[in-house]
Protein backbone atom coordinates (compact mmCIF):
# COMPACT_ATOMS: atom_id res chain seq x y z
CA UNK A 1 0.00 0.00 0.00
CA UNK A 2 2.63 2.47 1.02
CA UNK A 3 4.37 2.49 -2.31
CA UNK A 4 1.22 3.08 -4.29
CA UNK A 5 -0.39 6.05 -2.69
CA UNK A 6 -1.64 7.97 -5.69
CA UNK A 7 -1.68 11.68 -5.21
CA UNK A 8 1.27 11.61 -2.88
CA UNK A 9 3.27 12.81 -5.81
CA UNK A 10 1.30 15.97 -6.25
CA UNK A 11 4.09 18.20 -5.17
CA UNK A 12 6.56 16.59 -7.50
CA UNK A 13 4.26 17.30 -10.43
CA UNK A 14 5.29 20.93 -10.50
CA UNK A 15 8.70 19.95 -11.74
CA UNK A 16 7.27 17.89 -14.50
CA UNK A 17 6.92 20.35 -17.33
CA UNK A 18 10.43 21.75 -17.21
CA UNK A 19 11.90 18.36 -16.55
CA UNK A 20 9.92 16.75 -19.37
CA UNK A 21 11.37 18.66 -22.30
CA UNK A 22 15.00 17.66 -22.29
CA UNK A 23 14.12 14.01 -22.07
CA UNK A 24 12.55 14.24 -25.50
CA UNK A 25 15.94 14.06 -27.11
CA UNK A 26 16.36 10.35 -26.65
CA UNK A 27 14.13 9.05 -29.43
CA UNK A 28 15.29 5.58 -30.32
CA UNK A 29 14.22 3.70 -33.45
CA UNK A 30 11.84 1.68 -31.29
CA UNK A 31 10.00 4.86 -30.36
CA UNK A 32 9.43 5.59 -34.04
CA UNK A 33 8.28 2.04 -34.59
CA UNK A 34 5.69 2.42 -31.84
CA UNK A 35 4.59 5.76 -33.26
CA UNK A 36 4.06 4.28 -36.71
CA UNK A 37 2.14 1.35 -35.29
CA UNK A 38 -0.09 3.65 -33.27
CA UNK A 39 -0.69 5.89 -36.28
CA UNK A 40 -1.75 2.79 -38.19
CA UNK A 41 -4.17 1.89 -35.42
CA UNK A 42 -5.55 5.42 -35.40
CA UNK A 43 -6.08 5.13 -39.16
CA UNK A 44 -8.05 1.93 -38.78
CA UNK A 45 -10.18 3.48 -36.04
CA UNK A 46 -11.06 6.34 -38.38
CA UNK A 47 -12.03 4.30 -41.47
CA UNK A 48 -15.75 4.14 -40.62
CA UNK A 49 -15.78 7.91 -40.18
CA UNK A 50 -14.31 8.25 -43.65
CA UNK A 51 -17.18 6.14 -44.97
CA UNK A 52 -19.71 8.34 -43.20
CA UNK A 53 -18.17 11.47 -44.74
CA UNK A 54 -18.14 9.86 -48.21
CA UNK A 55 -21.84 9.15 -48.08
CA UNK A 56 -22.78 12.42 -46.48
CA UNK A 57 -21.46 14.17 -49.58
CA UNK A 58 -23.20 11.95 -52.15
CA UNK A 59 -26.51 12.37 -53.88
CA UNK A 60 -28.94 9.50 -53.29
CA UNK A 61 -28.58 8.64 -56.99
CA UNK A 62 -24.81 8.27 -56.71
CA UNK A 63 -25.18 6.14 -53.61
CA UNK A 64 -27.68 3.87 -55.34
CA UNK A 65 -25.72 3.55 -58.56
CA UNK A 66 -22.21 3.10 -57.15
CA UNK A 67 -22.78 1.70 -53.68
CA UNK A 68 -21.82 3.05 -50.27
CA UNK A 69 -18.06 2.67 -50.58
CA UNK A 70 -17.52 4.55 -53.85
CA UNK A 71 -16.10 8.06 -53.89
CA UNK A 72 -18.59 10.89 -54.38
CA UNK A 73 -18.58 12.56 -57.78
CA UNK A 74 -18.79 16.01 -56.33
CA UNK A 75 -19.64 17.89 -53.19
CA UNK A 76 -23.32 17.63 -52.46
CA UNK A 77 -24.58 19.33 -49.34
CA UNK A 78 -28.28 18.67 -49.93
CA UNK A 79 -28.28 15.87 -47.36
CA UNK A 80 -27.03 18.20 -44.66
CA UNK A 81 -29.28 21.14 -45.47
CA UNK A 82 -32.25 18.85 -46.14
CA UNK A 83 -31.97 17.19 -42.75
CA UNK A 84 -31.47 20.52 -41.02
CA UNK A 85 -34.73 21.86 -42.40
CA UNK A 86 -36.70 18.65 -42.05
CA UNK A 87 -36.12 18.27 -38.33
CA UNK A 88 -35.61 21.90 -37.32
CA UNK A 89 -32.14 20.81 -36.37
CA UNK A 90 -31.20 24.07 -34.67
CA UNK A 91 -33.73 23.47 -31.92
CA UNK A 92 -32.87 19.79 -31.71
CA UNK A 93 -29.21 20.64 -31.27
CA UNK A 94 -30.02 23.12 -28.54
CA UNK A 95 -32.08 20.52 -26.69
CA UNK A 96 -29.24 18.03 -26.83
CA UNK A 97 -26.69 20.57 -25.66
CA UNK A 98 -28.90 21.63 -22.76
CA UNK A 99 -29.78 18.12 -21.70
CA UNK A 100 -26.28 16.67 -22.04
CA UNK A 101 -24.63 19.76 -20.56
CA UNK A 102 -26.91 19.86 -17.53
CA UNK A 103 -26.57 16.14 -16.93
CA UNK A 104 -22.78 16.31 -17.21
CA UNK A 105 -22.45 19.15 -14.70
CA UNK A 106 -25.06 17.92 -12.23
CA UNK A 107 -23.87 14.32 -12.33
CA UNK A 108 -20.25 15.31 -11.73
CA UNK A 109 -21.30 17.41 -8.72
CA UNK A 110 -23.42 14.61 -7.33
CA UNK A 111 -20.65 12.09 -7.91
CA UNK A 112 -18.15 14.23 -6.02
CA UNK A 113 -20.50 14.57 -3.04
CA UNK A 114 -21.26 10.84 -2.97
CA UNK A 115 -17.65 9.87 -3.38
CA UNK A 116 -16.54 12.27 -0.66
CA UNK A 117 -18.80 10.52 1.82
CA UNK A 118 -17.93 7.02 0.64
CA UNK A 119 -14.25 7.36 -0.20
CA UNK A 120 -12.99 9.92 2.29
CA UNK A 121 -15.71 9.68 4.93
CA UNK A 122 -15.70 5.87 4.81
CA UNK A 123 -19.23 5.69 6.03
CA UNK A 124 -20.18 2.39 7.60
CA UNK A 125 -21.56 -0.08 5.08
CA UNK A 126 -20.13 1.90 2.20
CA UNK A 127 -19.69 -1.19 0.05
CA UNK A 128 -23.40 -1.88 0.28
CA UNK A 129 -24.32 1.73 -0.34
CA UNK A 130 -22.11 1.59 -3.40
CA UNK A 131 -23.77 -1.60 -4.60
CA UNK A 132 -27.13 0.10 -4.12
CA UNK A 133 -26.08 3.19 -6.05
CA UNK A 134 -24.61 1.01 -8.77
CA UNK A 135 -28.09 -0.40 -9.28
CA UNK A 136 -28.67 2.65 -11.45
CA UNK A 137 -26.33 1.04 -13.93
CA UNK A 138 -26.87 -2.64 -13.32
CA UNK A 139 -30.60 -2.35 -13.86
CA UNK A 140 -31.20 -2.55 -17.62
CA UNK A 141 -32.73 0.68 -18.89
CA UNK A 142 -35.69 -1.06 -20.47
CA UNK A 143 -36.80 -2.05 -16.96
CA UNK A 144 -36.98 1.63 -16.01
CA UNK A 145 -39.12 2.68 -18.94
CA UNK A 146 -42.60 1.67 -17.77
CA UNK A 147 -42.20 2.67 -14.09
CA UNK A 148 -40.63 6.01 -14.96
CA UNK A 149 -43.34 6.61 -17.51
CA UNK A 150 -45.99 6.19 -14.84
CA UNK A 151 -44.13 8.22 -12.24
CA UNK A 152 -43.41 11.08 -14.62
CA UNK A 153 -47.07 11.22 -15.65
CA UNK A 154 -48.03 11.46 -11.97
CA UNK A 155 -45.79 14.44 -11.32
CA UNK A 156 -46.45 16.10 -14.67
CA UNK A 157 -42.97 15.61 -16.06
CA UNK A 158 -43.87 13.33 -18.98
CA UNK A 159 -42.68 14.84 -22.26
CA UNK A 160 -40.34 17.33 -20.58
CA UNK A 161 -36.59 17.75 -20.90
CA UNK A 162 -36.39 18.07 -17.12
CA UNK A 163 -37.47 14.44 -16.68
CA UNK A 164 -34.69 13.25 -18.96
CA UNK A 165 -32.14 15.44 -17.19
CA UNK A 166 -33.08 14.08 -13.76
CA UNK A 167 -33.09 10.47 -14.91
CA UNK A 168 -29.71 10.65 -16.60
CA UNK A 169 -28.15 12.64 -13.78
CA UNK A 170 -28.88 9.72 -11.49
CA UNK A 171 -27.87 7.05 -14.00
CA UNK A 172 -24.56 8.70 -14.85
CA UNK A 173 -23.80 9.45 -11.21
CA UNK A 174 -23.41 5.72 -10.60
CA UNK A 175 -20.23 5.60 -12.66
CA UNK A 176 -18.89 8.84 -11.22
CA UNK A 177 -19.50 7.74 -7.66
CA UNK A 178 -17.79 4.44 -8.22
CA UNK A 179 -14.77 5.82 -10.04
CA UNK A 180 -14.24 8.75 -7.67
CA UNK A 181 -14.76 6.78 -4.49
CA UNK A 182 -12.29 4.17 -5.69
CA UNK A 183 -9.78 6.89 -6.38
CA UNK A 184 -10.50 8.72 -3.12
CA UNK A 185 -10.23 5.57 -1.03
CA UNK A 186 -6.53 5.74 -1.78
CA UNK A 187 -6.31 9.47 -1.06
CA UNK A 188 -3.29 10.45 1.07
CA UNK A 189 -4.63 10.86 4.61
CA UNK A 190 -1.86 13.18 5.83
CA UNK A 191 -2.98 15.78 3.32
CA UNK A 192 -6.49 15.78 4.78
CA UNK A 193 -5.33 15.82 8.37
CA UNK A 194 -3.01 18.71 7.73
CA UNK A 195 -5.88 20.73 6.31
CA UNK A 196 -8.15 19.87 9.22
CA UNK A 197 -5.47 20.91 11.70
CA UNK A 198 -5.25 24.22 9.85
CA UNK A 199 -8.91 24.66 10.81
CA UNK A 200 -10.61 23.94 7.51
CA UNK A 201 -14.14 22.55 7.69
CA UNK A 202 -15.11 19.37 5.84
CA UNK A 203 -16.77 21.45 3.16
CA UNK A 204 -13.61 23.49 2.70
CA UNK A 205 -11.43 20.40 2.64
CA UNK A 206 -13.59 18.99 -0.12
CA UNK A 207 -13.22 22.01 -2.37
CA UNK A 208 -9.68 23.11 -1.49
CA UNK A 209 -7.90 19.82 -1.03
CA UNK A 210 -9.82 16.97 -2.58
CA UNK A 211 -11.32 18.51 -5.71
CA UNK A 212 -8.05 19.97 -7.03
CA UNK A 213 -6.39 16.58 -6.82
CA UNK A 214 -9.15 14.73 -8.65
CA UNK A 215 -9.80 17.43 -11.23
CA UNK A 216 -8.44 15.40 -14.19
CA UNK A 217 -10.75 12.55 -13.27
CA UNK A 218 -13.65 14.97 -12.95
CA UNK A 219 -12.88 16.25 -16.43
CA UNK A 220 -13.01 12.72 -17.75
CA UNK A 221 -16.38 12.23 -16.10
CA UNK A 222 -17.67 15.47 -17.55
CA UNK A 223 -16.71 14.39 -21.05
CA UNK A 224 -18.10 10.89 -20.63
CA UNK A 225 -21.39 12.05 -19.16
CA UNK A 226 -21.84 14.57 -21.94
CA UNK A 227 -21.11 12.06 -24.69
CA UNK A 228 -23.08 9.22 -23.11
CA UNK A 229 -26.13 11.38 -22.53
CA UNK A 230 -25.85 12.78 -26.05
CA UNK A 231 -26.03 9.31 -27.57
CA UNK A 232 -28.73 7.92 -25.27
CA UNK A 233 -31.64 6.68 -27.30
CA UNK A 234 -34.28 4.64 -25.51
CA UNK A 235 -35.25 6.93 -22.64
CA UNK A 236 -35.32 10.12 -24.76
CA UNK A 237 -37.36 8.18 -27.32
CA UNK A 238 -39.98 7.41 -24.70
CA UNK A 239 -39.93 10.63 -22.70
CA UNK A 240 -39.48 13.28 -25.37
CA UNK A 241 -42.66 12.89 -27.33
CA UNK A 242 -43.03 16.35 -28.84
CA UNK A 243 -40.68 17.22 -31.65
CA UNK A 244 -40.00 20.48 -29.79
CA UNK A 245 -38.28 18.52 -27.03
CA UNK A 246 -36.40 16.04 -29.15
CA UNK A 247 -32.69 15.30 -28.99
CA UNK A 248 -30.28 14.59 -31.82
CA UNK A 249 -30.32 10.83 -31.39
CA UNK A 250 -34.12 10.72 -31.50
CA UNK A 251 -34.29 13.06 -34.50
CA UNK A 252 -31.91 10.77 -36.41
CA UNK A 253 -34.56 8.08 -36.14
CA UNK A 254 -36.79 9.99 -38.55
CA UNK A 255 -34.55 8.80 -41.38
CA UNK A 256 -34.93 5.13 -40.55
CA UNK A 257 -38.27 4.31 -42.13
CA UNK A 258 -40.41 1.24 -41.72
CA UNK A 259 -38.81 -0.52 -44.67
CA UNK A 260 -36.53 2.04 -46.27
CA UNK A 261 -33.70 4.11 -44.94
CA UNK A 262 -32.15 7.23 -46.33
CA UNK A 263 -28.48 6.32 -46.28
CA UNK A 264 -27.02 9.54 -47.61
CA UNK A 265 -29.11 11.80 -45.42
CA UNK A 266 -28.47 9.54 -42.43
CA UNK A 267 -24.75 9.90 -42.98
CA UNK A 268 -25.05 13.65 -43.30
CA UNK A 269 -27.24 13.83 -40.23
CA UNK A 270 -24.99 11.70 -38.07
CA UNK A 271 -22.06 13.83 -39.09
CA UNK A 272 -23.97 16.91 -38.00
CA UNK A 273 -24.98 15.19 -34.81
CA UNK A 274 -21.52 14.12 -33.75
CA UNK A 275 -19.77 17.41 -34.44
CA UNK A 276 -20.77 18.96 -31.11
CA UNK A 277 -19.58 15.95 -29.13
CA UNK A 278 -16.26 15.87 -30.95
CA UNK A 279 -15.88 19.57 -30.31
CA UNK A 280 -16.68 19.07 -26.65
CA UNK A 281 -14.10 16.32 -26.42
CA UNK A 282 -11.42 18.37 -28.13
CA UNK A 283 -12.06 21.38 -25.90
CA UNK A 284 -11.71 19.25 -22.79
CA UNK A 285 -8.83 17.28 -24.25
CA UNK A 286 -6.48 19.80 -22.70
CA UNK A 287 -7.98 19.33 -19.27
CA UNK A 288 -7.71 15.59 -19.65
CA UNK A 289 -3.98 15.57 -20.06
CA UNK A 290 -3.00 18.61 -18.05
CA UNK A 291 -1.41 17.46 -14.87
CA UNK A 292 -1.88 19.15 -11.57
CA UNK A 293 -0.31 22.45 -10.87
CA UNK A 294 1.45 23.01 -7.62
CA UNK A 295 -0.88 25.88 -6.84
CA UNK A 296 -3.81 23.55 -6.62
CA UNK A 297 -2.71 22.23 -3.27
CA UNK A 298 -2.62 25.52 -1.43
Amino acid at each position, binding site marked *: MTTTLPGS*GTRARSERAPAGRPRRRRRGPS*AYLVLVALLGLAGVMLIPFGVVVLNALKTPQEYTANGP*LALPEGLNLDGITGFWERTGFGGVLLNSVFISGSVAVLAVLLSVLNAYALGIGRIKGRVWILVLLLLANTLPQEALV*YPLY*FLSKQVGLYDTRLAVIIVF*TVIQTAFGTY*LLSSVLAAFPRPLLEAARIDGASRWQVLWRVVVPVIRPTMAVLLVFFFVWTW*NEFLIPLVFLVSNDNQTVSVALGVLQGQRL*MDATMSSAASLLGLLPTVLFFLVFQRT*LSRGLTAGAIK
Partner: protein
Amino acid sequence: MTSAAHKRSRRERLAYLPYLIPGLILFTAVIGVPFVMNLYTSFTEWEGVDSIAGFWPGGDWVGLANYRELAGDGEFWASFRHNALVVVAMAIAPTAMGLVLAALLTDLIDRHFGPRAAGFLRACVYLPQVLPIVIAGVVWSWLLNPDTGAVNEVLRAAGLDSLARDWLGEPGTALWAVMAVMVWVQLGFPLVVFMSGLQRVEPSLYEAAEIDGANWWRRFRHVTVPQIRPEIFVVLLWTTIASLKVFAPIYVLTKGGPGGATNVPSYYSYQNFFDKTEVGYGSAITTVLTLIIVALTVVFLRLQGRAGQEPEGER
Protein backbone atom coordinates in the same frame (compact mmCIF):
# COMPACT_ATOMS: atom_id res chain seq x y z
CA MET B 1 -7.80 1.00 19.82
CA THR B 2 -9.44 2.74 22.76
CA SER B 3 -13.19 3.09 22.91
CA ALA B 4 -12.92 6.86 23.03
CA ALA B 5 -11.02 6.90 19.77
CA HIS B 6 -13.53 4.48 18.36
CA LYS B 7 -16.40 6.76 19.32
CA ARG B 8 -14.66 9.76 17.87
CA SER B 9 -14.05 8.05 14.58
CA ARG B 10 -17.72 7.01 14.45
CA ARG B 11 -18.86 10.56 14.99
CA GLU B 12 -16.30 11.62 12.44
CA ARG B 13 -17.81 9.28 9.90
CA LEU B 14 -21.38 10.32 10.60
CA ALA B 15 -20.36 13.87 9.81
CA TYR B 16 -19.94 12.82 6.20
CA LEU B 17 -23.49 11.49 5.94
CA PRO B 18 -25.08 14.76 4.74
CA TYR B 19 -22.96 14.60 1.60
CA LEU B 20 -24.77 11.43 0.66
CA ILE B 21 -28.30 12.76 1.14
CA PRO B 22 -28.96 14.48 -2.21
CA GLY B 23 -27.64 11.46 -4.05
CA LEU B 24 -29.75 9.03 -2.06
CA ILE B 25 -32.95 11.05 -2.46
CA LEU B 26 -32.58 11.29 -6.22
CA PHE B 27 -31.58 7.66 -6.40
CA THR B 28 -34.70 6.59 -4.53
CA ALA B 29 -36.96 8.53 -6.88
CA VAL B 30 -35.37 7.53 -10.16
CA ILE B 31 -34.06 4.03 -9.49
CA GLY B 32 -35.31 2.73 -6.14
CA VAL B 33 -39.03 3.16 -6.63
CA PRO B 34 -38.97 2.04 -10.28
CA PHE B 35 -36.97 -1.01 -9.28
CA VAL B 36 -39.64 -2.02 -6.75
CA MET B 37 -42.37 -1.32 -9.31
CA ASN B 38 -40.55 -3.46 -11.85
CA LEU B 39 -40.21 -6.22 -9.28
CA TYR B 40 -43.94 -6.06 -8.57
CA THR B 41 -44.76 -6.09 -12.28
CA SER B 42 -42.69 -9.24 -12.71
CA PHE B 43 -45.27 -11.10 -10.65
CA THR B 44 -48.10 -9.99 -12.90
CA GLU B 45 -49.32 -10.43 -16.42
CA TRP B 46 -49.56 -6.96 -17.82
CA GLU B 47 -49.66 -5.24 -21.20
CA GLY B 48 -48.36 -1.91 -20.02
CA VAL B 49 -51.55 0.07 -20.40
CA ASP B 50 -54.08 -0.15 -17.59
CA SER B 51 -52.95 0.75 -14.13
CA ILE B 52 -54.27 -0.50 -10.85
CA ALA B 53 -55.71 2.27 -8.67
CA GLY B 54 -54.71 4.72 -11.35
CA PHE B 55 -51.15 4.80 -10.19
CA TRP B 56 -49.40 1.59 -9.37
CA PRO B 57 -48.74 -0.20 -12.63
CA GLY B 58 -49.14 -3.90 -12.98
CA GLY B 59 -51.77 -6.28 -14.18
CA ASP B 60 -53.18 -9.56 -12.92
CA TRP B 61 -51.17 -11.21 -10.16
CA VAL B 62 -49.74 -14.48 -11.42
CA GLY B 63 -47.23 -15.19 -8.67
CA LEU B 64 -44.09 -16.90 -9.84
CA ALA B 65 -45.50 -17.94 -13.23
CA ASN B 66 -43.23 -15.59 -15.18
CA TYR B 67 -40.17 -16.87 -13.37
CA ARG B 68 -41.21 -20.46 -13.91
CA GLU B 69 -41.62 -19.76 -17.62
CA LEU B 70 -38.24 -18.08 -17.72
CA ALA B 71 -36.53 -20.97 -15.97
CA GLY B 72 -37.77 -23.23 -18.74
CA ASP B 73 -36.81 -20.89 -21.57
CA GLY B 74 -33.88 -22.75 -23.07
CA GLU B 75 -33.15 -20.13 -25.73
CA PHE B 76 -32.80 -17.42 -23.09
CA TRP B 77 -30.27 -19.33 -21.05
CA ALA B 78 -28.41 -20.44 -24.15
CA SER B 79 -27.95 -16.80 -25.09
CA PHE B 80 -25.78 -16.33 -22.00
CA ARG B 81 -23.13 -18.38 -23.79
CA HIS B 82 -22.76 -15.58 -26.32
CA ASN B 83 -22.49 -13.18 -23.42
CA ALA B 84 -19.34 -14.88 -22.23
CA LEU B 85 -17.68 -13.98 -25.51
CA VAL B 86 -19.15 -10.51 -25.45
CA VAL B 87 -17.50 -9.97 -22.06
CA VAL B 88 -14.20 -10.75 -23.74
CA ALA B 89 -14.90 -8.32 -26.58
CA MET B 90 -16.37 -5.49 -24.56
CA ALA B 91 -14.54 -5.80 -21.24
CA ILE B 92 -11.40 -7.88 -21.15
CA ALA B 93 -9.86 -7.12 -24.55
CA PRO B 94 -10.49 -3.36 -24.49
CA THR B 95 -9.25 -3.07 -20.90
CA ALA B 96 -6.04 -4.94 -21.67
CA MET B 97 -5.46 -3.10 -24.92
CA GLY B 98 -6.41 0.22 -23.35
CA LEU B 99 -3.91 -0.33 -20.56
CA VAL B 100 -1.04 -1.01 -22.93
CA LEU B 101 -2.05 1.88 -25.18
CA ALA B 102 -2.39 4.27 -22.27
CA ALA B 103 1.03 3.31 -21.01
CA LEU B 104 2.58 3.67 -24.47
CA LEU B 105 0.97 7.05 -25.04
CA THR B 106 1.88 8.43 -21.64
CA ASP B 107 5.23 6.83 -21.13
CA LEU B 108 6.58 6.82 -24.67
CA ILE B 109 4.73 9.05 -27.12
CA ASP B 110 4.14 11.90 -24.69
CA ARG B 111 7.75 11.90 -23.58
CA HIS B 112 9.39 11.45 -26.95
CA PHE B 113 7.02 13.24 -29.29
CA GLY B 114 5.17 15.61 -27.00
CA PRO B 115 1.69 15.78 -25.49
CA ARG B 116 0.12 16.92 -28.75
CA ALA B 117 0.97 13.67 -30.50
CA ALA B 118 -0.37 11.69 -27.56
CA GLY B 119 -3.52 13.76 -27.45
CA PHE B 120 -4.12 13.36 -31.16
CA LEU B 121 -3.77 9.59 -31.00
CA ARG B 122 -6.03 9.40 -27.98
CA ALA B 123 -8.70 11.44 -29.77
CA CYS B 124 -8.57 9.08 -32.77
CA VAL B 125 -9.04 6.01 -30.59
CA TYR B 126 -11.81 7.65 -28.58
CA LEU B 127 -13.82 8.85 -31.59
CA PRO B 128 -15.82 5.61 -32.15
CA GLN B 129 -17.44 6.18 -28.75
CA VAL B 130 -19.02 9.31 -30.16
CA LEU B 131 -20.60 7.86 -33.30
CA PRO B 132 -24.26 6.91 -32.77
CA ILE B 133 -24.38 3.14 -32.64
CA VAL B 134 -27.11 2.94 -35.29
CA ILE B 135 -24.86 4.63 -37.83
CA ALA B 136 -21.83 2.62 -36.73
CA GLY B 137 -23.85 -0.53 -37.36
CA VAL B 138 -24.84 0.57 -40.87
CA VAL B 139 -21.29 1.55 -41.78
CA TRP B 140 -19.77 -1.67 -40.49
CA SER B 141 -22.31 -3.76 -42.36
CA TRP B 142 -21.18 -1.93 -45.52
CA LEU B 143 -17.56 -2.64 -44.74
CA LEU B 144 -18.31 -6.28 -43.96
CA ASN B 145 -20.57 -6.84 -47.00
CA PRO B 146 -19.56 -10.19 -48.55
CA ASP B 147 -19.48 -8.91 -52.18
CA THR B 148 -18.68 -5.23 -52.06
CA GLY B 149 -17.34 -4.73 -48.53
CA ALA B 150 -13.92 -3.20 -48.00
CA VAL B 151 -12.77 -5.99 -45.69
CA ASN B 152 -13.17 -8.68 -48.33
CA GLU B 153 -11.83 -6.38 -51.06
CA VAL B 154 -8.64 -5.88 -49.09
CA LEU B 155 -8.29 -9.61 -48.51
CA ARG B 156 -8.81 -10.30 -52.21
CA ALA B 157 -6.37 -7.61 -53.25
CA ALA B 158 -3.80 -9.20 -50.96
CA GLY B 159 -4.37 -12.52 -52.68
CA LEU B 160 -6.09 -13.99 -49.64
CA ASP B 161 -9.35 -14.85 -51.41
CA SER B 162 -9.76 -17.93 -49.29
CA LEU B 163 -10.02 -15.76 -46.17
CA ALA B 164 -12.86 -13.65 -47.56
CA ARG B 165 -16.05 -14.54 -45.74
CA ASP B 166 -19.71 -13.71 -45.44
CA TRP B 167 -18.77 -12.18 -42.10
CA LEU B 168 -22.20 -11.39 -40.71
CA GLY B 169 -24.00 -14.25 -42.46
CA GLU B 170 -22.09 -17.34 -41.43
CA PRO B 171 -22.86 -18.65 -37.96
CA GLY B 172 -19.16 -19.38 -37.46
CA THR B 173 -17.99 -15.82 -38.08
CA ALA B 174 -20.94 -13.58 -37.16
CA LEU B 175 -20.23 -13.41 -33.44
CA TRP B 176 -16.52 -12.83 -34.05
CA ALA B 177 -17.24 -10.04 -36.50
CA VAL B 178 -19.58 -8.43 -33.99
CA MET B 179 -16.92 -8.79 -31.30
CA ALA B 180 -14.33 -7.06 -33.46
CA VAL B 181 -16.68 -4.14 -34.00
CA MET B 182 -17.28 -3.96 -30.25
CA VAL B 183 -13.58 -3.74 -29.53
CA TRP B 184 -13.50 -0.89 -32.04
CA VAL B 185 -16.35 0.88 -30.25
CA GLN B 186 -15.16 0.22 -26.74
CA LEU B 187 -11.40 0.80 -26.81
CA GLY B 188 -11.53 4.57 -26.30
CA PHE B 189 -13.27 4.33 -22.94
CA PRO B 190 -10.52 2.50 -20.98
CA LEU B 191 -7.84 4.47 -22.78
CA VAL B 192 -9.16 7.84 -21.66
CA VAL B 193 -9.78 6.69 -18.08
CA PHE B 194 -6.34 5.13 -17.77
CA MET B 195 -4.54 8.11 -19.25
CA SER B 196 -6.24 10.42 -16.79
CA GLY B 197 -5.28 8.07 -13.98
CA LEU B 198 -1.68 8.11 -15.10
CA GLN B 199 -1.62 11.87 -14.56
CA ARG B 200 -1.36 11.11 -10.85
CA VAL B 201 1.81 9.06 -11.26
CA GLU B 202 5.02 10.74 -10.27
CA PRO B 203 7.43 10.96 -13.20
CA SER B 204 10.23 10.37 -10.70
CA LEU B 205 8.96 6.82 -10.24
CA TYR B 206 9.62 6.12 -13.92
CA GLU B 207 12.93 7.85 -13.81
CA ALA B 208 14.02 5.82 -10.84
CA ALA B 209 12.94 2.64 -12.61
CA GLU B 210 14.75 3.68 -15.75
CA ILE B 211 17.92 4.41 -13.84
CA ASP B 212 17.60 0.97 -12.26
CA GLY B 213 17.71 -0.39 -15.81
CA ALA B 214 14.09 -1.57 -15.92
CA ASN B 215 12.89 -2.10 -19.49
CA TRP B 216 9.53 -0.85 -20.74
CA TRP B 217 7.65 -4.01 -19.83
CA ARG B 218 9.02 -4.04 -16.29
CA ARG B 219 8.14 -0.38 -15.82
CA PHE B 220 4.66 -1.15 -17.12
CA ARG B 221 4.20 -4.01 -14.69
CA HIS B 222 5.77 -2.51 -11.62
CA VAL B 223 4.95 1.17 -11.95
CA THR B 224 2.04 1.78 -14.33
CA VAL B 225 -0.32 -1.03 -13.38
CA PRO B 226 -0.08 -0.69 -9.57
CA GLN B 227 -0.49 3.07 -9.80
CA ILE B 228 -3.81 3.00 -11.61
CA ARG B 229 -5.24 -0.13 -10.03
CA PRO B 230 -8.42 1.69 -8.90
CA GLU B 231 -9.12 2.69 -12.49
CA ILE B 232 -8.47 -0.82 -13.77
CA PHE B 233 -11.02 -2.25 -11.38
CA VAL B 234 -13.58 0.40 -12.21
CA VAL B 235 -13.20 0.01 -15.96
CA LEU B 236 -13.27 -3.77 -15.81
CA LEU B 237 -16.43 -3.87 -13.71
CA TRP B 238 -18.09 -1.19 -15.76
CA THR B 239 -17.44 -2.77 -19.12
CA THR B 240 -18.44 -6.17 -17.77
CA ILE B 241 -21.78 -4.79 -16.62
CA ALA B 242 -22.22 -3.13 -20.00
CA SER B 243 -21.48 -6.35 -21.83
CA LEU B 244 -24.00 -8.29 -19.76
CA LYS B 245 -26.66 -5.74 -20.66
CA VAL B 246 -25.57 -5.26 -24.27
CA PHE B 247 -28.20 -5.08 -26.95
CA ALA B 248 -27.94 -2.26 -29.49
CA PRO B 249 -24.50 -2.95 -31.01
CA ILE B 250 -25.47 -6.52 -31.77
CA TYR B 251 -28.92 -5.72 -32.95
CA VAL B 252 -27.84 -3.10 -35.48
CA LEU B 253 -25.27 -5.44 -37.01
CA THR B 254 -26.99 -8.81 -37.12
CA LYS B 255 -30.40 -8.47 -35.45
CA GLY B 256 -29.36 -11.49 -33.41
CA GLY B 257 -28.78 -13.60 -36.51
CA PRO B 258 -27.90 -15.60 -38.45
CA GLY B 259 -30.46 -17.95 -36.98
CA GLY B 260 -30.02 -16.67 -33.41
CA ALA B 261 -26.24 -17.15 -33.48
CA THR B 262 -25.66 -13.74 -31.89
CA ASN B 263 -28.66 -13.41 -29.55
CA VAL B 264 -28.03 -12.01 -26.08
CA PRO B 265 -30.28 -11.99 -22.98
CA SER B 266 -31.25 -8.33 -23.31
CA TYR B 267 -32.80 -9.13 -26.67
CA TYR B 268 -35.47 -11.14 -24.87
CA SER B 269 -36.38 -8.36 -22.49
CA TYR B 270 -36.57 -5.82 -25.33
CA GLN B 271 -38.73 -8.11 -27.35
CA ASN B 272 -41.10 -8.74 -24.49
CA PHE B 273 -41.28 -5.12 -23.37
CA PHE B 274 -41.74 -3.46 -26.73
CA ASP B 275 -42.69 -5.96 -29.44
CA LYS B 276 -44.92 -8.33 -27.57
CA THR B 277 -45.79 -5.84 -24.80
CA GLU B 278 -45.65 -8.69 -22.32
CA VAL B 279 -44.37 -6.29 -19.70
CA GLY B 280 -44.75 -8.75 -16.83
CA TYR B 281 -42.52 -11.32 -18.47
CA GLY B 282 -40.07 -8.64 -19.59
CA SER B 283 -39.85 -7.41 -16.00
CA ALA B 284 -39.08 -10.91 -14.81
CA ILE B 285 -36.26 -11.16 -17.35
CA THR B 286 -34.74 -7.83 -16.32
CA THR B 287 -35.07 -8.72 -12.64
CA VAL B 288 -33.16 -11.95 -13.13
CA LEU B 289 -30.58 -10.17 -15.26
CA THR B 290 -30.19 -7.47 -12.61
CA LEU B 291 -29.77 -10.00 -9.82
CA ILE B 292 -27.05 -11.80 -11.77
CA ILE B 293 -25.24 -8.54 -12.45
CA VAL B 294 -25.58 -7.34 -8.84
CA ALA B 295 -24.21 -10.63 -7.53
CA LEU B 296 -21.27 -10.24 -9.85
CA THR B 297 -20.79 -6.64 -8.73
CA VAL B 298 -20.69 -7.63 -5.08
CA VAL B 299 -18.10 -10.32 -5.74
CA PHE B 300 -16.09 -7.86 -7.76
CA LEU B 301 -16.20 -5.10 -5.14
CA ARG B 302 -15.08 -7.59 -2.50
CA LEU B 303 -12.13 -8.56 -4.66
CA GLN B 304 -11.35 -4.91 -5.21
CA GLY B 305 -11.48 -4.32 -1.46
CA ARG B 306 -9.16 -7.22 -0.84
CA ALA B 307 -6.75 -5.91 -3.45
CA GLY B 308 -6.14 -3.06 -1.08
CA GLN B 309 -7.94 -0.20 -2.75
CA GLU B 310 -10.82 -0.27 -0.33
CA PRO B 311 -9.25 -1.08 3.02
CA GLU B 312 -11.88 -2.54 5.33
CA GLY B 313 -12.28 -1.19 8.82
CA GLU B 314 -9.89 1.05 10.71
CA ARG B 315 -6.25 1.05 10.09
